[in-house]
Structure formats: C-alpha cells, structure tokens
C-alpha cells in the first residue's frame, strides 16, 4: 500500500527521441552468443593454422558446419517459438524419427512426395495432440512431452519392428537425393541479399538515426556479403542449408515484423493479460506445438532423405541439442522472449565446437564435457545479466 504523493498534474512532453542504451545492446546478455561464435571461430582458425592442419575457415569446412547444423537449426528455431509462447517440447526428436520412418516405409509404395506429405501430416498430428493435452487438460508441457517422447519412440519401434528400413525404388532414391542434397551456387544471391540488407540498414541509419535493429541489419548484411567475396564468388550450398535459411527468414520476419509475431510474444509474456486483451491464447499455444512438430517432421523427412534408410533409434537424444541451442541463443524458459537468429547462432556454436574437435583431432571424449560447460556458462551469463537489469 504505497502512496504516491507526487502530483500527476504537470505533464512533461514525452520525448519521442529514442534513448538507446548501447551498453545494453552490446552486453553479453544480448549479444553473448555472437561473441562466443566469433571467438570460437577465431580460436579454431588460429589453432588449425598454428598446428599445420587444414584451415578451419575453408569454404568446404564452413559449408560443412552449416550442413551439419541444419537439422538441429530448423528444429531449434521452431523450439524457440514454442518457448516464447511459454511452453516446451521434448518430443521433437521422436516426432522426427517417426516422420522419417513413415516416409521411408511408404515411399516405395506411394512415391516420395506423397510419403513426405503423409509424414508431415502425422508429425503435425503429434504436435496437435501434445498441444491439446497441455492446454485442455492443463498438464505441464514438460511432463506431457516427456511422455510423448517415449511413446512416439515406441511407435517408431513398433512400426519398424525394431529393424532398419530402407528404400529400394531408384526413382524415389533420386527424388530424395535431389530434395535433400542437390547443391546450388548461392554466391551471387547471398551477395545480393547481404548487400541489400547492408544498404537498407545504412539508408535507415541515414534517415532515422542509429537503432539496434538497423545496425544489426547493416552488420549482418556486411557479414553475409563478405562470405561469397572471401570464397572467391563460388559458394555451393546443399538444399538442406537453403531450407534452414528459408525457415530462419520466415520465422524471423513473422516474429519481428507482423501482428502475429507481436501477439506470440504477448501470449508468452503474460498469458492472462493477453487473454483479457482479446487474444485467443489457446489457439496460439496449440499452433506453436503444431509448428514445432511440423519442423520436427520436416527435419525427419530431410534426415531420412539423406540416408535413404532409417534406424529405429535415429536422432535419439537430439532433442537435448535442440533445446541447448535455444538456451545458448538466450531464449527464456518461462516465455515471452527469444530470437530465432540467436538460436541459430547457438546451433552453429554447438556444431562449430563438434567440428573443431574433429579437425583438431582432440578426441570425442572431451566433447560432451566442453559442450555441457558451454551451455551452463551461457545460461549463467544470461541469468546474471537478467538480474542486473532489474
């Protein structure tokens, strides 16, 4: 029961001038995942150069890391959306495995595209089921998806009868190869996109003044444009990486530049307030589950297309890498904040670590330890940063 004795009569004109706290924009809390990624790349480059191994920063290795992180990247970005809405999905890897198994199991009979569509539909059904159980009955999402993680893996085992499945039809194999791994020279498109972003950012800064998001566009655009320049104007990327880029672009655009995106953040930031403002919180939360499972289903189709076969334990444990990427990207576990671009950087960071261990031949034994430490350190930095803010 505080009593404000200050009179509210005098009204100072509010300043529309944006007061940007650059110290906060560039703080570890906000930008830590990018710093870590840059630092890791620099360290690995120096180490590979110093020890006379193949250069870490080669184009081949760079595209390798992108390729390796794509599946997890796609799932982690969708996971970020579900985390923003205040929920959680542990079942992604099982859903991906189910989707992959269904596709492999049916592609010989009905062809690649119908099989992929079936797999996606079933995956989205799993998401709908997760969402309904969480939102209608009101069980914590962690518990529900821990259950479906196990149960859906069980369905995969039943469907495959515990054995590996493989496709035999050469047409289907061709289609899968083309879908997942055909490569395109993206040097010129990337250069154009990067330059475009940088110029747009520059134009905004010139007309409206410096702001964090326009500066981000400028820096991101320059970085993007530099890649094809440094790679000698050829940059052959597999489809998988392009899919990841497309997902990133769509989710980033929707979350940051649409009414829908604003409402997604609102639903996670304060569900009761969002409900009382007329937002259909129920629908948004269910939709996030469906999106997350759709991404998992897509990842499963891609994974199965890559191997043209599937093993019942495929992707087991991947859900933890997916969640770790989101946490590295600074996504709050209690909803209302998160960024798909930072999550993507988190996924890249994890796969750069793995890749670096392989290149430096450090042995896989230390890998788990280092990755775990990185995740906990990141979480610690975010938590301490959040406390300081208040």
């Amino acid at each position, binding site marked *: 029961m505080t*009593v404000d004795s*200050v009179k509210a009569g005098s*009204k100072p004109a509010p300043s529309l001038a944006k007061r940007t706290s650059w110290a906060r924009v560039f703080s570890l809390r906000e930008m830590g995942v990018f710093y870590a990624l840059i630092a890791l790349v620099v360290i690995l480059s120096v180490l590979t150069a110093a020890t006379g191994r193949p250069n870490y920063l080669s184009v081949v290795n760079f595209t390798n890391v992108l390729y390796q992180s794509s599946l997890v990247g796609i799932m982690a970005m969708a996971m970020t959306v579900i985390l923003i809405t205040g929920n959680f999905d542990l079942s992604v890897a099982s859903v991906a495995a189910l989707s992959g198994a269904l596709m492999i199991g049916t592609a010989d009979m009905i062809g690649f595209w119908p099989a992929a569509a079936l797999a996606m539909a079933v995956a989205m059904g799993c998401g709908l089921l997760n969402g309904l159980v969480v939102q209608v009955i009101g069980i914590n999402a962690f518990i529900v998806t821990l259950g479906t993680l196990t149960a859906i893996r069980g369905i995969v085992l039943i469907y495959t009868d515990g054995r590996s499945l493989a496709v035999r039809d050469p047409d289907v194999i061709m289609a899968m190869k083309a879908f997942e791994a055909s490569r395109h020279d993206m040097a010129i498109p990337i250069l154009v996109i990067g330059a475009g972003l940088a110029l747009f950012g520059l134009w905004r800064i010139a007309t409206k003044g410096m702001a964090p998001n326009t500066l981000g566009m400028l820096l991101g655009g320059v970085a993007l444009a530099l890649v094809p320049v440094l790679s000698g104007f050829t940059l052959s990327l597999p489809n998988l990486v392009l899919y990841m880029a497309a997902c990133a672009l769509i989710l980033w655009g929707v979350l940051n530049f649409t009414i829908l995106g604003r409402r997604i*953040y609102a639903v996670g*930031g304060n569900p009761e307030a969002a409900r009382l403002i*007329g937002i259909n919180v129920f629908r948004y939360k269910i939709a996030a589950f469906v999106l997350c499972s759709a991404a998992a289903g897509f990842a499963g189709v891609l994974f199965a297309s890559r191997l043209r076969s599937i093993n019942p334990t495929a992707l087991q444990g991947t859900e933890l890498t997916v969640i770790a990427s989101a946490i590295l990207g600074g996504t709050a576990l209690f909803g209302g904040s998160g960024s798909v671009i930072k999550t993507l950087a988190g996924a890249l960071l994890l796969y750069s670590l793995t890749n670096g261990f392989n290149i430096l031949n450090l042995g896989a034994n230390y890998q788990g330890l280092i990755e775990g430490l990185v995740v906990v350190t990141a979480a610690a930095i975010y938590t301490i940063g959040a406390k300081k803010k208040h």
Partner: protein
Amino acid sequence: MNDTPPLMRLHQVGKRFGTAVVALRGVDLDIRLGEVHGLLGANGAGKSTLIKILSGAFGPTSGTINWKGRDVRWASPRDANDNGVATLHQHIPLIPALSVLENVFLSEGGFLRDTKGARQRFDALCTQVQYQIDPDVLVDDLAIGQRQMVAILQALSTGADLIVMDEPTASLAAEEREAVYRIVRHLSQNEGKAILFVSHFLDEVMDLTDRVTVLRDGVAALSARTADLTEDQIAEAIVGRQIAALERRSREESAAHVHRFGAVALEARNLTSAGKFAPLNLELRAGEVIGLAGLLGSGRSEILHALYRADALATGDVLVKGTPLRNSPSAAVNAGMALVPEDRNAQGLFPNFELWRNVTLPDLRGVSTGVTPVRDRERQRGADAITKLGIKAHSPDALPGELSGGNAQKITLARWLFSTVNVLLLDEPTAGIDIGAKSDILNLVRQLASQGMAVIIVSSEFEELLAVCDRILVVRDGAIVATRETHETSEHDLFLLAGGKSASADQTQH
C-alpha cells in the same frame, strides 16, 4: 480495562518510502492483553504498512514501538515472532503438500520432527481454542475456512501474546466466519491474548472488538471504545473527504439528470457463475456510468469478468447492442468492450514490452501497414498515451517495471483509448495509486462517458463511485443487494449496505 498497561504501544509511528511517498504520518496505537482491537481504514490508508511494521517486515522511519514496557525494533519477522507477535496474513502462507500438524509446527527447527510431542501439543492447542481438526489431513484438501483455522493454530503454536489478523474473514463463508469469531472471542476472553483484528466489515467489527482504531491518510483518525461508537460514526471516520469537489459536481449533475443516456449498450440476462455470484440482470446505456460497490471477496470482480465473457463457467447471456456474445474475451473485444483488470501486474501488463508495445497491443491494426506494425506510428501512439493520461515516463520506451503503480495502471487504461470501445469495464482502477492519478482517471471516465461510452466501475473506495457514477449497485456475498441513484445515497450509506447492515433495511426503505 484501561488501567492495565498496554502490551504494545505505538507512539507517532511514521513510514516513508523514498523521499516522496509517505505511507504513515504518525500513528498512535495501544494494544492491551485480553482485548480485541479493530483496525479499519479505506484502501491506501496505511493499514498494510502498519501491519508490516508490527510484524517486523520493515521498520518505521520515525516514532517508537513499545513492547511489554521496553522500546523495540524488530530485526525481522522472525524476531517479532520470537518475541510474541504472530501475524496472520491475508494470503495464508501454508504449505499445501504438508499435513495440518506439520504446518502448525512449521517454524520449529530441529532435524527430526518430534511427532509424538507435537501431537500432544497439537491436541492441547485444539482444546485451548475448542476447535477440532484432523492433524493428518493435507492442507491441500482443506476448505479455505479450515485453512484459516490452521493458520490461527500455527500462530498460537509459537506462544504469541499478540496476534495480528489481516482481514481473516474476507474470503470466508458466513459459517466459517462464525468459527473465526468464536476463536477470537475465546482467545481474548479466556486466554487473555491481545488481538489486532483488521477488517472491512463494520458489523463484525462492532460485534467482535473492544476498541477500534480507524486509519485515514496515514494517521489514526479515530480511536475509541467500540461500545461508545455506532457503525455510522466508524463509516464517517473511514470516509474522509478526498474527492469532495468531484463528488459534489457529480451528485448535482446526477440529481439534475444532466447526463443524457443513449441506447442500451450492454445487457446481461440471467448471468451467473456457480459459486461466484447469483443470477443478475443488468442494463447499461451509452453514456452511463454504473458503479459496483463491494468489499474484497464480494463477487464484484467475478461479475465484471463474466460480463467481459472471461469466465468460461458463466451461464446466461451478455448482449452488446442487442447481439449476444460468444463466451470468450475475444468476442467481447471484437464487440467493442474493454476491461482494465484489478491486478495490473498479473492480468494487465506485459513486463517485457515497452510502454508503446503495451499500449498498441489491442489495436495493432490501427498502427500497421498490412500485417506489419509500423514502429514510428506505434511509438507515436505511446507518446500520445503519455500526454493523454499524464503518465510520468521518460519516453515511450520505458518498461512497465520502471514506472510507479499509478503510472503503470494508466498504461492498462490508455491501451483502450485508441480504438472503438463502447463499453469500458474498470476493476479497481485506482487501487494503490496516488490521489492525483486518481482524479486524472476519474475525470477521464466522466469525459469518456460524455462522449457516449458506457462504463462500469468496480471499487471498494465508495467516494470514487459517488464521484463518477450515475447509478451504484451494491454487491455483497455474490449478490446485488441494493441499487442506488448516486444523488440518493452517500458513502456511509454504501458502507453500511456493503459491509454491514443486511439488505432488508434497504427493501423496507423503498
């Protein structure tokens, strides 16, 4: 009883927060053993602050607390407790997953729980207060009234001499209240304990207490033996005259029928929600302001939520301009309704959103090109909100957490002023905010009504209702017990209706 020295004597106890906020200006209070002392006051009068000082949650900035003859300053709530002051807070801090027995002896240290000894002491306590309850039931399984009893047992188990009870009956049913009264009487008369009984209900204060202190604006406005007082006098002391000018104007306008009402904007037919409030019918016209006067727990907020279609279990119809609404808040918002909720932090504000994002959320289309909100227009709207309501914020980029309560409250109101809203529901819009911000908000309500908006205000500060409403409905125990034209009633009449005298007096009057 006056010859016994007081157990606790407060002398000119004051409390300020920061430099600007004064919660208590200097309160004198004597509490004696064997006495039930009633503490009353409107919201914002300083009751909570005083209770927190007594219970050691924080210290006074001026004045002295004399406890059993020596001046003390509690270091912590634990310190106060160890010295014999037990406090029952409004929200009962029991642990649902533990049994009654474990909860009662919760504060005791030690590695092992001494169950046998505890049981004997529990039985002794129960005999002492003449209340029986199974010690092995989980608190989670108890009704709210029984939990209150467990909390009382918990307080007694520490051997306290003074028990501070903060609105112990606010959320209880009638028979549960009786049980609390019985224990309170027993403790003071037979056990010789001192009890500070905080309440909004005048009838129970009259029945139960030996002495009454009324706080108003941080001072003791009245302190006397209950036997020497009438309910009227207490109501008068609580009321004060803060918004007198506004109130007088409103009263005159209401009597002269200055306000012109339009067509029926909102209608409720047999609206009810099981266990929350009885079926009600209501008609609200464009330009009309209706007040729901009721105390905490009377069902007033529940009625408002059901009108807003935010109560999934409510039955009956709500019609806006003659069209029935689907039972969902989005339907209400689409039909032009708006709700400013009671608890701005839990139900109103988005902590991660800047002021402008908080303001534009209900009407994003109005600041968008296609599906894309335009940041400049959004921030401009934030700035407009700041000017319109006199929000004290350094810029539209301020986060709600950086603003004071009153200014944060204005955000939850401001967000509805930029789109077509025909029916505005306000749930305690002025709770815990300063007088300046209060009159800003009340003036705005009157202005909106004159532009044709239909408004319903819920408040436990009846002077505000008198200042802005055309008609006042009194809510008690989940039912509308009386309807009053504003010019026909007074604050103390409302206090009697909402907190004391039964509605039968009302029916005979008309």
